């Protein structure tokens, strides 16, 4: 018994719950960050309904919808990866993380495509065509670039976190017993998904 408790000494100080609670507290600050921007969006949209309608109609609904499906599916693969590691199947867990990364890259590729077209039309803050936009529409595109840009940064960070966790799973330091790092990276990824769940209808759909 005593030798067992010595060998478990390391895990005894491993506070998985505390680690997860810390992640949740961090996620709350993310909600504040994007929440503030959503309030700004709602206010400007209320003040300039026609301009926001006009701006929204210039976004590519198909690309936005495809990206929504990409992110929802990547959330699924992260959830499945956690299930796999809980069952002790680390190879499957890593494979599922890699599928998630593929979706993240596909999402960013779509984003790149969308923004490139906007650049070609001079539609970025500071460019020629942008300066001629009516004030309300400029506000729409300011918020569009700011909010989807900030979200895209989160996609990149989330993908990097998942890659690091996949590396640790391969090394064996994240495993069935010490799964919390995968769970935390997953929590972050799901938050990125949730933010997009709100961004998509607000920018692409609302008439």
């Amino acid at each position, binding site marked *: 018994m005593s030798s067992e408790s010595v060998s*478990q000494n390391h895990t005894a100080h491993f506070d*998985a*719950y505390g680690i*997860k*609670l810390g992640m*949740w507290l961090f996620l*709350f600050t993310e*909600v504040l960050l994007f*929440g503030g921007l*959503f*309030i700004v969006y*709602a*206010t400007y*949209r*209320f003040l300039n309904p026609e301009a926001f309608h006009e701006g929204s109609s210039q976004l590519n*609904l198909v690309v936005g*919808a495809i990206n*929504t*499906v990409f992110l*929802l*599916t990547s*959330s*699924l693969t*992260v*959830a*499945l990866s*956690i*299930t796999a590691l*809980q*069952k002790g199947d680390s190879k499957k867990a890593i494979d599922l993380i890699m599928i998630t990364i593929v979706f993240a890259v596909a999402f960013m590729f779509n984003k790149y495509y969308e923004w490139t077209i906007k650049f070609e039309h001079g539609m970025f803050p500071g460019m020629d065509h942008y300066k001629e936009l009516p004030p309300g529409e400029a506000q729409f595109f300011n918020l569009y670039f700011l909010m989807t840009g900030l979200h895209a940064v989160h996609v990149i960070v989330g993908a990097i976190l998942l890659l690091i966790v996949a590396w640790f799973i391969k090394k064996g330091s994240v495993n069935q017993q010490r799964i919390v790092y995968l*769970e935390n990276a*997953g*929590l972050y990824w*799901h938050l990125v*998904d*949730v933010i997009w*769940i*709100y961004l*998509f*209808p*607000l920018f692409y*759909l*609302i*008439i």
Partner: protein
Amino acid sequence: MLEKNEVHIVDYKFNILVWIDLLIFTMITIEIAQFDFQALTVMVALVIATLKTYLVGTYFMHLKFENRFLQTIVVGVGLLFIAVLMVLFTDFLYY
């Protein structure tokens, strides 16, 4: 005396069911966007998005299986944020 945290495993199949629900909600959001609900347009979109968030939070983020304290603070922050939005929208309605 070793207190092991009970691990609840969400089945592969169940995760996939949640994902299908999320896709259905996405289709509903796109369909419903064709109607103009006037001042409530943003509100309707937010309600559907919140239903999707509920699914992601409850099952993908495993909130259903976390302890009471964590559930309480997450729901608390959520309600606080919804309260702020409600105040904002009431302001719009009587603008």
